[in-house]
């Protein structure tokens, strides 16, 4: 991927991220932080790739930790976010 294309993607993604959040009530700050924390759990994919093509033991060890940590990020992030959002379950939420 050439550099400028990366820059475009960067710019657009950053803009998207900003717009998506721009109007969020304070009560959602923590759940949203948790939710975005979960989203960067996608690093798991990278960690799997890193481990998946690791050749030396060093690489394998680092790769193993990468996957371990990344899996923790993804799973933990999900569980915690889900629990926090429980409180918006009330059927009334669907009204407006």
């Amino acid at each position, binding site marked *: 991927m050439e550099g400028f294309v990366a820059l475009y993607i960067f710019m657009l993604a*950053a803009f998207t991220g900003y717009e998506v959040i721009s109007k969020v009530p*304070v009560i959602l700050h923590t759940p949203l*932080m948790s939710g975005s924390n979960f989203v*960067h759990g996608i690093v798991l994919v990278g960690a799997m790739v890193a481990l998946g093509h690791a050749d030396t033991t060093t690489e394998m060890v680092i790769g*193993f930790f990468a*996957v371990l940590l990344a899996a923790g990020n993804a799973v933990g992030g999900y569980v915690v976010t889900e629990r926090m959002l429980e409180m918006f379950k009330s059927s009334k939420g669907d009204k407006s």
Partner: protein
Amino acid sequence: MSWFIQAAYFTAAVLFIFGLKQMSSPVTARRGIIWAGAGMVLATLVTFVHPQVHANYLLMILAIGIGGGLAWWSGKRVAMTDMPQMIALYNGMGGGAAAAIAAVELVKGEEMEFVVLALAVLGALIGTVAFSGSAIAFGKLQGLIRKAFRYSGQQKVNLVLFSVTVLLGLIMVISGQANPVILTIFFILALVIGVLMTLPIGGADMPVVISLYNALTGLAVGFEGFVLQNPAMMIAGIVVGSAGTLLTQLMAKAMNRPISNVLFSNFGESGGEGQGEVQGALKPIEASDAGVMMAFADKVIIVPGYGMAVAQAQHKIWELTQLLQDRGVTVKFAIHPVAGRMPGHMNVLLAEAGVPYDIIYDLDEINSEFPTADVALVIGANDVVNPDARNNPDSPIYGMPILNVDQAKNVIVIKRGKGAGFSGIENPLFYADNTRMLYGDGQEMASALISAIKEL
């Protein structure tokens, strides 16, 4: 990469964006995390057949099992109040993973383009700082690290360390390869920076700092996504990086402190306040937050006092009531016999605003209902909700019947500041665990609540 894997990553990226978007409204938030979760599962499964993945499957599954299992277990059993530190922990793990990926790639020593190498190194630095920093944040919030660690010249030492680390990174980027020794020092220094940056910070500022590390992890992940040419990582990482940055700003703003203040000079200085909270401090709340709280309640009791009269907030309060009623919330008004400054003061005002008589209750009728109320909204009342009248025989108002607002599940108190009531005494209600202070003029705050609820 095959068409199939690409499409799956693309779908995951789209799911993440929409998931985040939905998470930013209370109405759709739960759906949002599920969408994002689906994206994650998809991306993970597909990665098993990724062309670059050709070995260590067992290790991989083991690592996922252990990491995921532990996270699942801890995430499920943690108390609600301990959530912030868990977020810090999981976030740190993400940062560590990003750094580890960079390490693998750098250790591999394959030829990389200049830009890619630079991104790899940058991601490594950021990820490592987020990793160690988050770990410290976790430790402090969890109570594992108690002492606030501070010494003079702290800032300068950090700056020097940081410069050295960046220099090492530059050397690697410019030389086009990662010398193992330099790389090791680089990582160690990065870890130290994260630790030193976070140690002096007090409890009250922690959420902001965690949010910052969260944004940083996002960035690191995004950068490593570029390195691995993995668009799902790229986009998810950058989106989180950007959203996280905004969120950090918003959180700092909600605490009424400029972000730079939180980040540098005053880092940690409000640690004391963090402690104070535990013993019962005045805990402010944002109108938007209070609005959501009431909007999702089943029963709200509104307790007006002299301050509502001063602010002439009766019309707004009635509008607020109607809004809540439209959402199916039961709203009742509790009128204390001596609220205001003349007999029937509140009645006159509520009648003026058009509040129907049948939702207005006096002390005897309503006092038993407070324990079943989700929210008691106290607007400009003070003496008439002072638990001292019930509990403290030394109080000048001891013996006066009061509205038992303190028994409600949540109490929101609207007042302008620390002004006392007619009797001039302190009110322990304001310091109660379940009380939040909404500071501001009664009318303005009522308007703010209205806007907050309308936005849902």
